[in-house]
């Protein structure tokens, strides 16, 4: 290493030369290089890394980053109808405030004493999700909804000791990709087609596929195409009759008005909590949940941490800890179920704050308002010649498919024209679901005003004419 003096940097207190000298003296060495004695010389990098010039002042750094990011257009600048797994719901100021608290932000894995706050906040998140989902066990969040779904079906595999997984063909494509990778070559994932008219699962095809080697039947409600499954209970019943576990993926924000999966027979509910008080961040703000009944055979198959309430040595004092810690890979390395690590705990706290603010009334009003706005948009879009919104005869929540098949425009062309009007049109489904032709997935949230929706309809009308 060259004999240059190390730089002094605000993040590195012992970069100050006096401290270094004292510490070196205390250890009894003259150069830090001696501390790297175990690294052989031929593995030592004897040049500086070739990195960009540093910007050590906040002023320079801010200028650089904000210039870079200014090349982005935000969903506040434009009106966005993009959904498909990431949603532009309102993030309450209180959610932001609490997740900014550095007591939470900079904590990690302390004990349920010095980090009691984190345990209680996450226990409360688990509890509120439990009410929303009508289930008694909810995990500390995993990475995202994709992982939640993939883990949920592997849990079903372990519980039933079977190898086939049946999934609805209207599954979100990214979830399917994650499942395929996570389930690996020894498990088989088979698609069950949807009814073209309703987007609902084809029960006859399900019956054909079901047998005594099916571990799980997975569908989403609403489906990726926006349709609610009107035969959910039948699907669950058929799964159970074959001894299979029914796994349902949901967006929790819909559960103020839509009945929770447990009510129609789901054994495992899963999904993503990004809608609950987490900003979109270009897809960087996700966290997954898995929920089940409080039965030992389910609890023991969760790979995630599960926080539980427990007494302390002082009567009446609430304490917390890990439930059945033995089952995780922290305790058991390769004998644990799957693996566990840092995931998305802070977002669990954010979602808890969100649900606490909303309460039952708020979730109900919100859900209803989203459905009303979506219904309004569908009605007006459907009125446009050549446009069908939705092409499925089914109830919807906040997302719906819009078919442009009877126009002479592709979705890409339409979206380009919408972009010129400062509208981000729905996600292009044409290559994901070619069977449905030129169609697009539109997402309406509580942030869309009547003016926004009218503007959209207007712009679409002009675009297709």
């Amino acid at each position, binding site marked *: *290493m060259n004999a240059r003096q*190390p730089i002094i*940097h605000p993040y590195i207190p*012992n970069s100050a030369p006096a401290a*270094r000298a004292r510490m070196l003296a205390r250890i009894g060495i003259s150069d830090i290089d001696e501390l*790297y004695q175990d690294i052989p010389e031929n*593995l030592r*990098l004897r040049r*500086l*890394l*070739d*990195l*960009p010039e*540093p910007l050590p002042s906040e002023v320079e*750094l801010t200028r650089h*980053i*904000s210039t*870079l990011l200014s090349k*982005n257009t935000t969903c506040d600048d434009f009106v966005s109808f*993009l959904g498909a797994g990431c949603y532009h719901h309102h993030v*309450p100021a209180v959610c*932001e405030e609490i997740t900014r*608290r*550095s007591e*939470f932000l*900079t*904590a990690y894995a302390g004990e349920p*004493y*010095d980090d*009691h706050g*984190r345990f209680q906040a996450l*226990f409360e998140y*688990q*509890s509120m*999700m*439990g009410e929303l989902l009508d*289930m008694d066990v*909810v995990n500390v969040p995993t990475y995202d*909804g994709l992982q939640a779904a993939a883990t949920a079906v592997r849990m079903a595999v372990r519980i039933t000791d079977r190898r086939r997984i049946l999934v609805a063909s209207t599954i979100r494509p*990214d979830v399917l990709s994650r499942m395929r*990778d996570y389930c690996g070559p020894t498990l088989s994932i088979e698609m069950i087609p949807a009814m073209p008219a309703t987007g609902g699962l084809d029960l006859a095809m399900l019956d054909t596929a079901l047998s005594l080697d099916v571990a799980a039947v997975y569908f989403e409600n609403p489906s990726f195409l926006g349709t*609610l499954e009107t035969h*959910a209970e039948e699907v669950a019943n058929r799964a159970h009759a074959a001894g299979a576990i029914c796994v349902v993926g949901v967006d929790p924000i819909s559960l*103020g*008005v*839509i009945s929770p999966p447990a009510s129609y027979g789901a054994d495992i509910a899963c999904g993503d909590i990004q809608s609950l008080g987490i900003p*979109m961040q270009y897809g960087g703000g996700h966290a997954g949940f898995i929920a089940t009944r409080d039965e030992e055979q389910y609890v023991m198959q969760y790979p995630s941490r599960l926080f539980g309430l427990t007494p302390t040595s002082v009567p009446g004092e609430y304490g917390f800890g890990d439930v*059945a810690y033995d089952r995780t*890979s922290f305790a*058991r390395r*390769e004998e*644990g179920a799957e693996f*566990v*690590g*840092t995931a998305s705990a802070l977002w669990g*706290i954010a979602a808890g704050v969100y649900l*606490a603010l909303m309460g039952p009334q708020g979730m109900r009003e919100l*859900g209803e*308002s989203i459905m009303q706005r979506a219904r309004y948009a569908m009605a007006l879009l459907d009125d446009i010649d050549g446009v069908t919104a939705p092409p499925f005869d089914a109830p919807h929540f906040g997302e719906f498919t819009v078919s442009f098949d009877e126009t002479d425009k592709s979705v890409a062309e339409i979206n380009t024209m919408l972009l010129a009007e400062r509208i981000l049109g729905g996600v292009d489904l044409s290559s994901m679901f070619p069977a449905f032709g030129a169609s697009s997935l539109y997402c309406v949230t*509580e942030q869309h005003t009547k003016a926004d929706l009218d503007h959209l309809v207007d712009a679409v009308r002009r675009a297709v004419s």
Partner: protein
Amino acid sequence: MENITDKRYEGGHPKPRRFHQARWDEPILFELSRPGERGILPPRVENEIHDVAGDVVGALPPALRRTEPPALPEIAQPQVVRHYMRLSQENLGLDLNVDIGQGTCTMKYSPKINERLASMPTLTAIHPLQPLETAQGILEVLYRFEQILCEISGMDRFSLQPGAGSAAIYGAASILRAYHAEQGEAEQRREIITTIFSHPSDAACAKTAGFDTVTLYPDKDGYPDLDALKAAVSERTAGLMVANPEDTGIYNPRIAEWVRVIHDAGGLCFYDQANANGILGITRARDAGFDLCHFNLHKTFSTPHGCGGPGAGALGATDRLAPYLPTPLVTFDGERYGLDNDRPRSIGKLRAFYGVTGAILKAYAWVMSLGAEGLVTVSRTAVLNNNYLLQRMCEIAGIEAPYASGHHRIEQVRYSLQSLCAEAGVSSEDIGLRAADYGVHYWTSHHPFVVPEPCTLEPTESFSQADLDEYVEILRQVADEARTTPGLVRTAPHNSTVHRADHTPLDDPAQWAITWRAYLKKRDASSQAP
């Protein structure tokens, strides 16, 4: 004026802090619920929308219509804020304490400027499926950061998609599986070799991806045992997944030989770089011959740990293995940034969309603030801090650093409090909990304890000499207490948020309560039992 200050010192040294953590004895949120209270109001629907839409909820088929509102608590806004603020006070984040006790977690300062930058709407309010031309800024950040990681590690490509370290490790195992399948050797190559002192996820993720694991124990000096590796390798070996330095802080001087042994047997090598903080700019994964490696952005690259996430993982590969990386990868054609979704050999999606962008931005900003000289200063200072701490910790009677005696360590040290514990009749966990009474904590290690009565410390570069001295003094104080008043230590903590908990209900299916509703059911059932 009285000399208040002098009374804070004894023999020239500061006396131990008279710390007490906030103790609010706060009820569970549901107990604060009062009927009718509202915490936030959703935006109202205009009448015209209402008129067109009608009774959307009533129109739902009964099976889909929620009959009972969810039993969420009803709490007004100030009360919600107060509750969570109190809980936050009952949490010892890094910003509040000399957080060197969470060894292997690389608890370092998360610069506040980066928090501000990552909360700009030009990051938070963009949707991942926006047209690429409207997201050039964030794509450029992702691209630039990938280049930085390539330079630091020597790898050819990085995916920034993994949600955190274990996700990246799993991704590596998945890539090994895909590679060997393409070679037609999936059935043959079923074993992944790791070491007992690598992170449990190295073994667990390999197993999750369908491999059998072969775990090696160290030699008598605590170094990874090359002879054991040679005995373990065979035509069944798919690859090696190890950390270096290991969680004990010991660097494997023969790491390049390890890689050769595996390559000679037809396997691939993955470098778990969770402990990279001590070797940035000092040595590179590629130079040791590795095919894959990963970084934890929430460890080495300063992004905050968030109580257990969100963090972010970066998975690096050589050109040969890059086609297997998760999809999409970020591209740059000289003018525009894009996303390459057309990758037939990829393992698919590890995570939704492209990665934990907030963390990636903070990590990028951190590197940009430091530059190349800054990074090497980070590592050299972290290693200096670690060995200074090692020197001072071993001066406390009853505390040792087993293995590699006489050798320096890299990023952390796993100590053993065995002698102290045997003498005093306490456990390492007891000592850690008593340390919490002085405003610090430490982490023993993953279970099971291979090093007896362990304590793993990792000072990183963020703490000053005074911070390290204070920490050592606290442990010395607690060690003395363990000898003289062991009962006090065994029943610690006393100045924390709550008192020693009884964890037996947490392992009993009849008693465990993972939600408030489960607790109420079991509580009411047991009070009715005869």
